[in-house]
């Protein structure tokens, strides 16, 4: 788990650096500070459980085992990316790992997860669905449509609200009438658990309980992980809504440092061993960036490929016909 958290941190550092070098286009949302949520949660579930997430999705992809090279290449928009450069940073996905994507439109994947959970229930399958979203999504109508449906039919879906206390540029108090997101679950009579999103054990325990609840056919479960993003909403965020002192206080809670100290204290790993992990991961990330740099761009002629199973007359639909 230490390795997974470091992997996310270093991947994001290199992504930020590549973004600054204009290798990555568009927007880039970093997961730095929130690593314990993806790592704790996914280790508490089975690799076959279905996964849908919000757009801050790099960490989930890496913990699910997606190749960091292919993930980095996807951020670069390269043909060797996880989705051939078509999904980009916010839509990482890999069907073979039951990872059905990051989703850029806030909350839009919540009812999709409920639909998948209905499929699992209908087929009496053991897999459950893990549906991650942020605090901002809970103000969106689709969040309520999804929770209502899941509770009504007692579907096997774990809703994980990753509460990092801020929307894009607003504080939680400015966008939500409730401070604790688990209160949202009460209206749907859904059992819930709040956990410390900066502590990988706390997240693990909460999601473990949730997954077991769902898998035993008792219906949906709501987990709130209170966490903090050390960086801005995206690389383009001036962070007008918070001061440096607050960020400093949270940085003292760094989930990687906390877990590292625990490991050393309990004599699970030595500082030297942890340092070796850091170095290995750093090397791996340098390779991932080099791979992404060298990977080919998608062919221009493929811009309209794959929209339909069988192409609809490209001559007629193509813009060059004018």
């Amino acid at each position: 788990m230490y390795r997974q958290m470091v992997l996310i941190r270093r991947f994001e550092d290199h992504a930020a650096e590549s973004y600054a070098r204009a290798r990555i286009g568009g927007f880039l949302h970093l997961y730095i500070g929130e690593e314990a949520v993806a790592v704790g949660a996914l280790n508490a579930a089975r690799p076959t459980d279905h996964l849908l997430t919000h757009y801050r999705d790099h960490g989930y992809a890496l913990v699910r085992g997606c190749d960091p090279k292919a993930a980095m290449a996807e951020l670069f928009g390269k043909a060797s990316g996880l989705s051939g450069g078509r999904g980009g940073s916010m839509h990482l996905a890999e069907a073979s790992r039951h990872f059905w994507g990051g989703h850029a439109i806030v909350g839009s994947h919540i009812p999709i997860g409920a639909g998948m959970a209905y499929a699992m229930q209908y087929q009496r399958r053991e897999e459950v669905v893990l549906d991650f979203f942020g605090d901002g999504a809970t103000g969106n109508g689709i969040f309520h449509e999804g929770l209502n449906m899941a509770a009504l039919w007692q579907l096997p879906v774990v809703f994980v609200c990753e509460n990092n206390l801020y929307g894009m540029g607003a504080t939680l108090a400015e966008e939500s009438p409730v401070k604790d997101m688990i209160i949202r679950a009460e209206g749907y009579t859904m059992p819930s658990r709040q956990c410390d999103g900066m502590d990988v054990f706390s997240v693990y325990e909460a999601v473990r309980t949730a997954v077991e609840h769902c898998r035993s056919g008792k219906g949906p479960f709501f987990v709130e992980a209170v966490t903090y993003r050390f960086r801005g909403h995206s690389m383009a965020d001036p962070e007008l809504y918070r001061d440096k002192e607050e960020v400093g206080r949270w940085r003292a809670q760094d989930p990687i440092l906390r877990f590292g100290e625990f490991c050393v204290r309990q004599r699970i790993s030595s500082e030297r061993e942890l340092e070796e992990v850091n170095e290995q991961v750093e090397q791996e990330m340098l390779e991932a960036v080099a791979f992404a740099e060298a990977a080919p761009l998608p062919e221009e002629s493929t811009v309209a490929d794959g929209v339909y199973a069988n192409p609809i007359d490209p001559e007629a639909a193509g813009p060059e016909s004018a």
Partner: protein
Amino acid sequence: MPQMTLVEAVRDALRLELRRDPRVMLLGLDIGRLGGVFRATDGLQAEFGAERVVDMPLAEAAIVGASIGLAVAGFVPVAEIQFLGFTHQAFHQIGPQVGRWRQRSRGRFSAPLVIRAPFGGGIRSPEFHSDAIEAQFVQTPGIKVVMPASPYDAKGLLLEAIRDPDPVLFCEPDRLYRLHRQEVPAGEYTIPFGQARTVREGDDVTLVAWSAAVELCERAAAQLDGEGIAATVLDLRTLVPLDVEGLVRAATRTGRVVVVHEAPLSAGFGAEVAATIQEEAFFALDGPVRRVAAWDAPYPSAALEASYLPTVARVVAAARAAVRS
């Protein structure tokens, strides 16, 4: 061969697919016990059970969103949205989600589903209940847009839609649901997408339409006959994919074209038809392509419906003008 109304043909197609393929599932508001707002799914829940003919909460986005989840998990969902105008409430699932899964994942996964939606005017219901917003979905790549105009076509095109590997928006003209009966084969048959239907042939002018406007054009053509003007009526059947070849052939034959639709004029699909014809058959044209459409205004109350929608008189006038130009 049995005689069926359009709504019976739709129900027959759904029943056949529910029987043939255990992955097929229907989802919608009041489609089960009640049988749907237009009774299109009447009796299907009793036959196939509440787990496969699913009464959903009143939440259009969740109906479409859950269908996406089921499709990705290997099912073949057919969602009913009570009126096409209600898809506004689900558009954030249709626009940014339904049509994009395939390309976003480079074909590694996709969300093939069917959204059925009654639509169109002439049933004295205002605004969203009658909105013809099909062109909005043509601007949403990844979705096919199917617009049947007859019972025979409704059944064959719906069977094709359910078996199609891509998401399909299937718009049913509610005004025609019970207007006519037609001979419809009892068994399975499919009508391929992208093949326009020549409803009648004439050498002077081509009337292009889809869905309920086809029936309007047939009446206009009959009246034009009396004036010595022979009209072809071409039913496009599907807007995506569009039968460009069939459209060009019909336009070339008559040199004069009138396109008719219930949607507002500006940027309606008629504009696409006119643009396609001038690109592909410019030198065969004897005059400009004319459009007969609804006004650029929200759908009015029942009292003004007849002034809002295209009428036989307006189609006939446009055809006359085209022939004289």
